[in-house]
């Protein structure tokens, strides 16, 4: 068994994260954030803060360039649109001093009316066939509305960076999932050429989608470093992290499913509202409609989602954005439909799962892998219809096939290799898996391979670690470069395109066993069994880590996590780890990973697909389905807290 190459560095504290960087003359920055959900800034007086000994610079709309930012706003916009919006920033000798100085900045606001409900904007919609007819011709129609909450990422490591200049050359140590995405965005915002910006991400304590884009803190740190001529570190605290660094959008999903007596789906109609917060910040899209269009074979589908803009923290991609939300509703509804039809819930899925990508009208590279996952989970949990407390859900995920282009360079001499790539290891173990692929190709031990990543400087492009893409993108190209280097001692390779005529997806299934105490409303999850198709499993330990991590996050999503916003104040009441209830070790049940290696030779030469996002997708629905089987109560809203179950 090969363990993480950087594991010892991490557990001994040797590994250096963005906020561990120590440089001579380092200053610490703190951001002043709006205390109003919507306001116009009348006046900013920073003189008291500037006079404080140890304070080196204050930036705000009063003295900094107006850099265009998301939508039609700017870096320090004179209109603030949610509690937590950036107003000003201070650089000082210490973190504490910067925070104290921030409180001395006198900002006069004119409060404006705010809106936490939001107006629906233009829908994103896709349709095929004739839904009205499909519903008319159905023997059974299920109509139900499901709701999911706003969830916060809460990566162990908050967002943060350290910025320094050498002349007109900017270097940023950043906690990011996309060194090139951040390089390009930061360069654009600062009016620099991309090659004048270097982004370094040596280690990362998770991002889960919220670190795919350049947030304001990076540009603020760069501007403060420029102004003071000193390196500046800006790390968000947990409160800022939970107010202003993204979230999983809340949804309301109105569904109608039609089916024939034999279980054939004749119509899927999904109308979805998505609470997007104050800005569209970019990054991976929350594609809630996606799974409605693809998971099951159905000729008549209409799926539309409308975003609601509100005066709350902006949503951003969160591990399987859109699919975790959509799957909860669709897979709960499929269970409800199965009960109405009198068909075994698992059997109904086996009768309807899609083997073609109906959105793109192409076959999948691995059309039967979902069946294999379903049957493996069924065997591992000894599936029996209506066994009390046992619930099941299947899922698909549009990504996982990799995002070309990408490059890799391999040097091979004296039986040792150096692999250079332009991706980051966000904590998933990319370093280790890539080293294994190179080692296998070169016929050497993995300890003889050194992987250099997380730096834009070598100029080898790699994609953002999103869409479960990293290994699927880089694996084949590292393997190819290693193959060439074995002959020539030094080679570069480019990642080829994905196959044109077929779609690559990932998919899987999970079952949950739990118990419910109806007197106290308490849910106790006893076991989760999972099987996911991620192509060839390069490293079972790393793949299991993703399965365990995804399910753990999903347990919180299903049972305890929810951002609470006061409707009259527009303020988040639990932007902390005490009242935003992540699962603890005591909440995590036995997790059985029944995944098998299923090399997908049609996807790429290495046969790998991604596994970062999938494990979070089906758990919530499997839990809701298990609760139904335990109690006969159908809960259509997350999180499933006690008050929803207590008798």
């Amino acid at each position, binding site marked *: 068994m090969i363990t993480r190459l950087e594991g010892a560095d991490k557990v001994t504290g040797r590994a250096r994260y963005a906020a561990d960087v120590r440089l001579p003359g380092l200053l610490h920055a703190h951001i002043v954030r709006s*205390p109003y959900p919507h306001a116009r800034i009348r006046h900013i007086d920073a003189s008291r803060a500037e006079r404080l000994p140890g304070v080196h610079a204050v930036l705000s709309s009063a003295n900094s360039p107006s850099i265009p930012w998301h939508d039609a706003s700017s870096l320090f916009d004179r209109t603030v649109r949610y*509690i937590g919006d950036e107003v000003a920033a201070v650089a000082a000798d210490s973190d*504490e001093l910067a925070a*104290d100085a921030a*409180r001395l900045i006198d900002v006069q606001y004119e409060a404006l009316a705010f809106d936490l409900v939001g107006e629906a904007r233009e829908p994103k919609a896709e349709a095929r066939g004739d839904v009205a007819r499909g519903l008319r011709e159905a023997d059974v129609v299920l109509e139900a509305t499901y709701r999911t909450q706003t969830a916060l990422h809460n990566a162990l490591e908050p967002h943060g960076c350290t910025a320094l200049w050498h002349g007109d050359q900017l270097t940023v140590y950043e906690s990011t999932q996309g060194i090139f995405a951040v390089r390009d965005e930061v360069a654009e915002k600062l009016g620099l050429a991309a090659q004048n910006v270097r982004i370094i991400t040596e280690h990362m304590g998770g991002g889960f989608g919220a670190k795919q884009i350049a947030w304001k803190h990076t540009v603020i740190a760069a501007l403060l470093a420029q102004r003071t001529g000193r390196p500046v570190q800006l790390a968000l605290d947990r409160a800022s992290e939970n107010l202003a660094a993204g979230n999983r959008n809340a949804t309301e999903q109105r569904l109608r499913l039609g089916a024939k007596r034999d279980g054939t789906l004749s119509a899927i109609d999904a109308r979805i509202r998505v609470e997007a917060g104050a800005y569209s910040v970019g990054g991976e899209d929350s594609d809630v409609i996606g799974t409605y269009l693809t998971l099951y074979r159905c000729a008549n589908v209409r799926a539309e989602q409308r975003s609601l803009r509100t005066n709350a923290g902006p949503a951003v991609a969160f591990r399987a954005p859109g699919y975790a939300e959509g799957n909860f509703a669709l897979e709960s509804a499929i269970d409800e439909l199965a009960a109405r039809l009198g068909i075994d819930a698992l059997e109904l899925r086996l009768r309807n799962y899609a083997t073609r990508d109906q959105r793109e009208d192409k076959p999948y590279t691995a059309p039967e892998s979902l069946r294999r996952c379903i049957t493996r989970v069924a065997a591992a949990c000894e599936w029996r219809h209506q066994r009390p407390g046992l619930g099941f859900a299947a899922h698909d995920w549009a990504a996982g096939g990799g995002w070309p282009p990408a490059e890799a360079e391999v040097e091979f001499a004296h039986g040792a290799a150096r692999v250079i790539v332009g991706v980051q290891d966000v904590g998933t173990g990319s370093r280790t898996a890539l080293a294994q692929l190179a080692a296998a190709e070169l016929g050497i031990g993995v300890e003889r391979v050194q992987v250099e990543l997380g730096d834009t400087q070598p100029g080898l492009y790699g994609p953002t670690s999103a869409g479960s893409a990293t290994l699927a993108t880089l694996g084949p190209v590292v393997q190819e470069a290693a193959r060439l280097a074995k002959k020539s001692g030094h080679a570069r390779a480019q990642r080829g395109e994905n196959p044109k005529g077929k779609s690559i997806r990932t998919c899987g299934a999970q079952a949950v066993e739990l118990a419910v*105490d109806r*007197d*106290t*409303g*308490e849910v*106790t999850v006893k076991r989760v069994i999972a099987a996911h198709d991620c192509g060839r499993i390069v490293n079972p330990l790393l793949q299991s880590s993703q399965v365990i991590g995804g399910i753990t996050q999903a347990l919180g999503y299903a*049972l*305890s996590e929810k951002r*609470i916003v*006061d*409707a*009259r*104040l527009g*303020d988040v*009441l*639990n932007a902390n780890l*005490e*009242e935003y*209830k992540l*699962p*603890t*070790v*005591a*909440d995590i049940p036995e997790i059985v990973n029944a995944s098998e290696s299923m090399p997908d030779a049609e996807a790429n030469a290495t046969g790998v697909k991604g596994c970062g996002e999938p494990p979070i997708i089906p758990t919530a629905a499997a839990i809701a389905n298990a609760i139904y089987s335990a109690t006969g109560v159908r809960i259509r809203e997350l999180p499933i*807290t*006690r*008050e929803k179950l*207590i*008798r």
Partner: protein
Amino acid sequence: MRAFEYTTPSTIQQAVSALGADSRALAGGTDLLTLMKAHIAAPERLVNVKMLLPRGIEARPEGLEIGALTTLAEIEQHPVIAAGYSALAQAAALAASPQIRNLATIGGNLLQRPRCWYYRNARIDCWLKGGADCPAREGENRNHAILGGGPCYAVHPSDLAAALLAFDAALWVHGRGGERAIELADFFALPAPERRTETVLSPDELVLKLRLPPHPEETRSGYLKAMDRKAWAFALAGVACVLRLSGRKIAHARIVLSGVAPIPWRARAAERELQGAMASPDRFAAAAAAAVQEAVPLRHNGYKLPLTKALVRQALTALTDPACK
């Protein structure tokens, strides 16, 4: 955090004279420092009492004595408490996390401030912090009080206080006027306009120790707590229960609720249902109903009524199970 003066007095006298309206005793700091970092509390002076006050647990003929600096971990693990005061050991074990229990003292636990999320948010003004209104009353109040609410609806966060009250504990406190004893039942008092705190301790007083009166061998006790997750969460509702049986007859009963009122809440009506009665499911149901008969739920916390009732029933059932000690 506001800058503050820090003193380490060497006698209790000195400590007491250093205390006052703008200064606070610092024990484990797990609550006080959190409040200061969040700009909810901003004392001018911290008086370090960590070397000064009694720490430790002593079983004496006149009862069990617990020094104010005794940590929750020490209470959780003490063999005499585990054997004779199970409710207290269980309450300690269910509180916070192991790391916090290693630092948190029992004195500080009784004096910790509410976890109401409006109170803990420095951007929000509220009655308990000296403001005019309580935003929780009509706001997000699923964690709030169903008993004893108004003008403040925050619940008392301590698990241990409920258990201590069920054992009829008393406190020894030291102030400018010297030492005095207070029954724990009198120590907690609903916040009122002239005193926006949960206890009657005056700012210049220190808690020295607690005493739990001795009780007969056959006493049984337990603490049940409902949380939003399996560990490391404050009580949505909790019940400490102390019982003495004579055969199947209930000779003595104390039922104290946590997580449902601004102070630990003695359910006297429930105790009356039990006192002198035969242990039976019907009796327990009657006691459970009596425990919340005066409850006035807010918009989002109605679930606390059935929850509290269920906990009372479950606690009584477990304690009167013939197989239980």
